[in-house]
């Protein structure tokens, strides 16, 4: 069971693979990630793929609104892993 901090870092790494130019330090973890980091739907889908591969957590389309921010993603993964 990973703590939220390292989960956020790990997701951050995945984001950097997709958008190497982003400055994660500037990102407010509660902010809408797609807006802040200029990620389009293709980028976002690739991120979900990476999350699925890394954490074994599948985020279906119906849950997309629940994972808008970095914090929300980390929470989601953490909860999914507990189950």
């Amino acid at each position, binding site marked *: 069971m990973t703590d939220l901090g390292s989960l956020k870092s790990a997701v951050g790494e995945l984001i950097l693979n997709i958008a190497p130019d982003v400055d994660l330090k500037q990102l407010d973890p509660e902010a809408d990630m797609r807006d802040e980091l200029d990620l389009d739907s293709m980028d976002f889908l690739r991120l979900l793929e990476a999350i699925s591969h890394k954490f074994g957590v599948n*985020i*279906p*389309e119906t849950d997309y609104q629940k994972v808008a921010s970095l914090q929300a993603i980390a929470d989601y993964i953490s909860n999914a892993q507990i189950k």
Partner: protein
Amino acid sequence: MKRIDMPSFGADMAKGTVAQWKVTPGEEVKKGDIIASIETMKGLIDMEVFDDGIIENLLVAEGEEVKVGSPIAELRLKEDIPLKAEPLVTEQQPGSVMPTEPQAKQIEKQQPIVIPLEKSAIAPATSIKISPAAKFKAQQLGINWQGLAPGRGPEGAILLADIESLERTERVTETDKLVQPQIAQDDSGAAKLLMRKAIADVVSRSKKDIPHYYLELDVSVEKTKQWLVEFNADLPPEQRILINAVIYCAIARALMHFPEFNGFYQQDTFTPAQQVHLGNAISLRQGGLVVAAIHNAQRINLKKMMILLKDQVIRVREGGLRMSEMQDSTITVSNLGDRGCDRIQSIIFPPQVAIIGIGRQRSVPWVMDEKIVIANIVSISLAADHRVSDGHMGARLLDSIDNLLQQPERLL
């Protein structure tokens, strides 16, 4: 023996570097094989070979920078080519990647060359004359001389004075004043500047030469959206399909019935293309634009389209775009679907004759079956060359795309 030259991917590319050879002397190659990775400011582009044959010699080393048009390899063709074909190449189009094709084997390749659209997409006209001094100056300034109007020399030849007067005009424009301080000392700044200039070149010429007309249609994507929700529901992310793929498939198929929007206008003549090579306009994260062709898009089903689109974005970002992708688009699609605009009125990239824009998916009040409902819609816009097509056909094209989007399952 066929000479393979350093290809040009645009006006601003006066030199190129073979980052990596993918073949060795003595190796057999087939048309379409990738023989080298060329370093450009947009990243690494994979260079294909256009003939079957055997690599005879590699003439430049990896990492060596050479002028565009200079020989980088020799290919022994399966059939012989008379050597006298080659001098023709040097005179006419040293900067173009495919000058040997017209005289050589590639007559079956119907489309004229489309040089990457974000640079100046120039017609591969063989009649543009330019003095060596003018050409050198143009290259220094990053001006695409092949896209220029005839100059003051004999038979419309472009002379040094023509380039110099262009330079003077450029210097006094506002944009230039803004741009001057931004000339960074580092490479990436200079590269960005060149890219901007190249884009400016294309769009300016397009607006000057092409009589654009504009049409828009708001299309209900309720059916597509609902279909996608069901389709994607139980699928892992790597198998999900985005609405972009659906729209691209619909556009490609519709275009097969409207050839006046899919082809090239060059030297006062329109030549419709046999296939739809959909130009996917992809934004570079660091600024700028790449238009990468999806070949034979009309034949591609939804699942395949999604895979190709994803793969293309990855290669645009990480390197590995192929030369044929950068050159072959017969029409461009500009998709701002995720960004904050309802519709886009685009600029056609010559020598293409149309460009389709896709706005963001949005919820609006909509009339369906005589009732007001909430529907997801997308505004699809068409900018087209009025020398080639009329509004009536344009409207029918948009209508056709609309109809296809009402039955997304048929695109599978």
